[in-house]
């Protein structure tokens, strides 16, 4: 016994090294979603199903509070109906008036930014108490910036477009062809437009804007311009390089947008895509 203790004591540096490394790598994987996807791939389905069962069961117990909050929401909606035009922040910009009512806007200041790593994040100076929530879209007058990843009381952290895990639903402005914008991790002013079929004609200089399909961003916010079009590697899709319109190295004030209807839209789409329903 004493021998084992002595042996372990002699290895104490190695053991501490392994413990600290595991701790650090554990933090990396839980904090950064792309690495997390690599690491937690297998457990996702299991935990997801378990959570779904639990939510199904627990939802009966919260009916009272749900009813109460529905009544409150009703009251506030009636108030908003009275005002006809929703109260907005001081931000002014033009949007399609049909969509304007389902979006609300905030302004915030970028207080931390990085562009040179493969996974870049921003920090904004507004948080929960200002009404910022996870999943809100972030953009400025030049174009799309990113998406809110997490919030604290006073700050929020944003996944930049310069993050290899962020997909933005986009379309080519003239032809209405849809695709997804994704950064390839190479240059801070270029990204790729994915999933554009080969038969579509794309010419350099065409403008790419948000499609409005994923309901994070309103339709028509600028993303970039087509720089180069090549046949894709797998043969089904084109390999399109974009010049991003926002200058990520010089971000100051940004706007945040929330779509009130996002949850409803998401749940409808999930319902429709579920087989057997």
């Amino acid at each position: 016994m004493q021998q084992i203790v002595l042996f372990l004591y002699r290895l104490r540096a190695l053991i501490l090294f392994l413990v600290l490394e595991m701790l650090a790598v554990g933090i990396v994987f839980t904090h950064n979603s792309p690495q997390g996807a690599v690491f937690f791939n297998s457990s996702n389905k299991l935990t997801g199903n378990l959570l779904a069962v639990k939510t199904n069961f627990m939802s009966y117990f919260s009916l009272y509070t749900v009813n109460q909050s529905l009544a409150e929401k009703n009251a506030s909606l009636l108030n908003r109906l009275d005002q006809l035009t929703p109260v907005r922040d001081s931000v002014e910009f033009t949007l399609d008036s049909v969509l304007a009512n389902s979006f609300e806007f905030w302004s915030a200041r970028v207080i931390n930014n990085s562009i040179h790593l493969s996974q870049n994040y921003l920090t904004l100076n507004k948080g929960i108490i200002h009404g910022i929530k996870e999943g809100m879209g972030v953009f400025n007058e030049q174009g799309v910036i990113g998406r809110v990843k997490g919030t604290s009381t006073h700050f929020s952290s944003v996944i930049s477009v310069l993050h290899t895990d962020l997909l933005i639903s986009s379309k080519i402005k003239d032809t209405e062809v849809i695709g997804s914008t994704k950064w390839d991790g190479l240059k801070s002013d270029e990204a790729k437009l994915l999933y554009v079929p080969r038969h579509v004609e794309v010419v350099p200089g065409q403008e790419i804007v948000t499609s409005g399909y994923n309901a994070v961003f309103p339709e028509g916010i600028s993303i970039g311009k087509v720089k180069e079009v090549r046949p894709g590697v797998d043969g089904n899709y084109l390999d399109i390089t974009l010049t991003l319109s926002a200058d990520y190295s010089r971000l100051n004030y940004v706007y945040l947008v929330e779509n009130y209807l996002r949850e409803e839209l998401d749940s409808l789409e999930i319902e429709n895509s579920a087989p057997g329903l």
Partner: protein
Amino acid sequence: MSSGKILKYSGSFLVYFLIQVFILKDLVLFGYAFCFLYVFFILSLPHEMPTIPLMLIGFFMGLLIDLFYDSLGMHAASGVLVGFIRNSWIKVNTPTGGYDDNVPPTLLNMGIGWFSFYSLPLLLLHHLLFFYIDSLGTEVYLPLVIRVVSSTAFTFILGSIVQAIFYRKERVL
């Protein structure tokens, strides 16, 4: 370690940390060359210091810097690695006649030749781990190599200048 020395190293910890997160974070040459000067703080701690405190210092320094880099865990992992390997590497590099007590392994104390041979591999290892973790989820490797090599060079050059200007020669000849 005397209390005076502890105070001195705590102050230097703070200075390295502040310079790293407030100045060097925004200093990236050509979009590739990062400067992780704080590694030199771990490297220039006294060679008598045992591995366990070294690793803990590396871990907490890294974690603090991670908070500002939004790269939680990445600097911590790399810092622990440097702290773990440093003492063995110092032992491998023992000059003829051995080390003098109370002489920290800095540029002026040990000379540029020894110091380069001591710090460059450790910097390379640190940067390799950091940028490798950063590149997980992407499939591009050339930028990774460019980042590691150019950042190692940049950190080494700036670190050597800092060592030459701000550190005193303590070796008694």
